[in-house]
């Protein structure tokens, strides 16, 4: 199988490429890049007016399989991923069983090998059953190829347990990814604490419940000398703490999610449970701070925190509805709409935060499109305006906060491992 991409603007910041050219893909690699390529290919894609960039690496995805295949499967999630331009993703370990042992990793790997349509990497848990008490066998996970551990969805409350894990992780060269939330402060809340929780008559989740934990987790990582990755940063204070830690040369990386820069707490006022996630949508000044942190390098990564839930768990009373939203199909388009077009960041930075940086953190050779690199490619029409509809969702669950939203910039083709894996356009 060979694919010839004609006349697209190829942007590969790692290879320092930014030019309109032809790209020939053969087998699963970029075979050649040139002003004009006339070789015959099985597939020819006219990419005139489009941007050609490395496939996205989404380092925060809840696949729900094994255990909750009614919400999502590895097959359905990876289809959704390819539609959104995501070719590699990191599976969160909060499944049933929890991915907290080498055996569980093997079990998951088997399903991935059989059903995944894109590249799926595995994150292990930090503690047994993600309960926060008993550290997992880090070396055992490492031997299975796991590069990162997290209890995502829960924060490890016990400082000593977290320190122990971080010391082990340092020894094994692994990264600890932290969900930062002090449940004593956030307990039973469901929206941002402040005017929003007061107006809605709901318990609030304070920003303190997040940023105090960001502060603590960075301090423990510093003590252990470990690399720490802060998941789903939602507020100004967290960004500021990370900025300061980076200035002090602490090995911290951080991610945010599209909803934290594209939406704000006023979007939740009508009790739309598709606007309910944890951490919650914050205020306007937090949104501005997240954008700034993405632009100045404080936040390294945009990840979806794709969290599928069935209607049964979402179409109920707000305070009882599940936390979380899907995001694989929209993250690139939302980032282009909300960050690139308004001039907050450029294409180079878009590719860094959505592909290069997460690839580096996870230690995978992705996020580049020079000759010889893996042919994981997204082709996006940056000017196409489109409306994201519920009917078009490929994910098994439909809990997107961006339903019926107008977006500018649409992923048209996704090539994964050298094969055309998604096409959003009729071709001749």
């Amino acid at each position: 199988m060979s694919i010839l991409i004609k006349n697209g603007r190829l942007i590969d910041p790692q290879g320092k490429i930014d030019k309109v050219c032809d790209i020939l893909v053969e087998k699963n690699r970029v075979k050649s890049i040139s002003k004009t390529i006339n070789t015959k290919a099985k597939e020819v894609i006219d990419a005139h007016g489009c941007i050609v960039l490395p496939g996205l690496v989404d380092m925060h995805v809840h696949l729900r399989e094994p255990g909750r295949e009614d919400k999502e499967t590895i097959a359905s999630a990876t289809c959704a991923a390819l539609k959104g331009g995501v070719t590699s993703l990191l599976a969160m370990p909060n499944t049933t069983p929890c991915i907290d042992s080498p055996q569980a990793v093997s079990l998951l790997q088997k399903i991935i090998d059989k059903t995944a349509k894109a590249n799926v990497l595995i994150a292990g848990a930090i503690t047994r059953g993600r309960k926060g008490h008993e550290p997992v066998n880090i070396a055992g996970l490492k031997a299975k190829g796991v590069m990162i551990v997290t209890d995502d969805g829960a924060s490890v409350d016990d400082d000593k347990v977290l320190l122990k894990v971080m010391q082990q992780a340092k020894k094994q060269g692994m990264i600890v990814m932290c969900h930062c939330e002090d449940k004593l402060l956030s307990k039973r809340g469901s929206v941002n604490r402040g005017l929003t929780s007061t107006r809605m008559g709901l318990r609030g989740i304070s920003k303190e419940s997040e940023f105090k934990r960001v502060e603590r987790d960075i301090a423990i990582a510093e003590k252990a000398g470990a690399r720490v990755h802060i998941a789903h940063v939602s507020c100004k204070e967290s960004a500021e703490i990370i900025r300061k830690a980076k200035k002090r040369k602490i090995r911290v990386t951080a991610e945010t999610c599209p909803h934290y820069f594209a939406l704000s707490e006023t979007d939740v006022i009508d009790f739309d449970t598709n606007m309910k996630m944890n951490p919650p949508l914050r205020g306007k000044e937090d949104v501005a701070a997240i954008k700034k942190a993405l632009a100045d390098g404080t936040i390294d990564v945009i990840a979806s925190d794709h969290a599928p839930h069935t209607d049964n768990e979402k179409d109920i009373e707000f305070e009882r509805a599940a936390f979380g939203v899907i995001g694989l199909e929209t993250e690139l388009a939302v980032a282009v709409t909300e960050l690139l077009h308004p001039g907050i960041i450029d294409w180079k930075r878009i590719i860094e935060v959505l592909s290069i940086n997460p690839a580096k953190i996870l230690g995978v050779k992705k996020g580049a499109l020079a000759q010889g690199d893996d042919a994981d490619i997204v082709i996006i029409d940056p000017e196409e305006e489109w409306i994201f509809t519920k009917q078009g969702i490929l994910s098994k669950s439909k809990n997107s906060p961006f339903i019926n939203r107008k977006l500018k910039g649409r992923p048209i083709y996704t090539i994964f491992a050298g094969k055309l894996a998604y096409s959003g356009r009729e071709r001749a």
Partner: protein
Amino acid sequence: MAKWNQKDLLGLENLSSEQIELILSTAESFREISTRGIKKVPTLRGKTVVNLFYEPSTRTRVSFEIAAKRLSADVININTETSSVKKGETLIDTGLSIQALKADVIVVRHNASGAAAMLARHVDISVVNAGDGWHEHPTQALLDIFTLKQKLGHIKGLKVSIVGDIAHSRVARSNIWGLTKLGAEVTVCAPELLIPPEIEKMGVSVTSSIERALAGADAVNVLRMQFERDTDTAFPKQLEYFRNFAITEERLKKAKKDIIVMHPGPINRGTEISSAVADGKNSVILDQVTNGIAIRMAVLFLISQARRAQ
């Protein structure tokens, strides 16, 4: 005059001052019906109103029932203790069943904030919020405002203090929206722990001093203290609350002579209000109960008209 065009009444936050005035003036025209020998008009004959109450309520449910009956509607009361709700049916499924029974209006009381809004999104028939969690209780605020207007002639410029558990009170929230939209100056007064965060951004003054709340006020709305509620907030002891916040004759001596004392009921004598004040000349508590009927008649009438127009 504004036209009413909404099939539901979910809260006062999203209403304009014109829409609130329209409900008040419609209620004024319905008030007289309850004073007749035959207290009934055929306005909603052939319509079915379902009271769907997930929380115990006497006053509000009976008031809605009487309002609907005086408009000649048929009324069904669904008791959640004996219905399929106990078998785990969701609010939406219950709502869809009521719609399939060809009812016209659901009056819903629920302990979750936003429940009425959610129900309204899923059914085509009208939904009236009779109290959702800590969020809103629009008809209570409307009858409070209606009573104030009846006694003082206007709302604009009035100083109204709301005293009690503001954090957990849907009555407080609806009153704040309604009163501020009509131009009243609202002060909320409670122990600090019972003041929800950033409430001043709703356009009210905040104090924890009952003396300050009463000084110069034209009216005080006294909320019921529910000591049995919410275990995660440090509640003041009952006696301590009475000592520091209750509306008593001594405190009223320092207030305006003709200050109006309101209470949404049921009242806890000796907790948030003394018996002498509850039964005294400043109290309009029973007028509120009477006015609740006219307000609810107006609401049922307006939403039914709007639905017919759609």
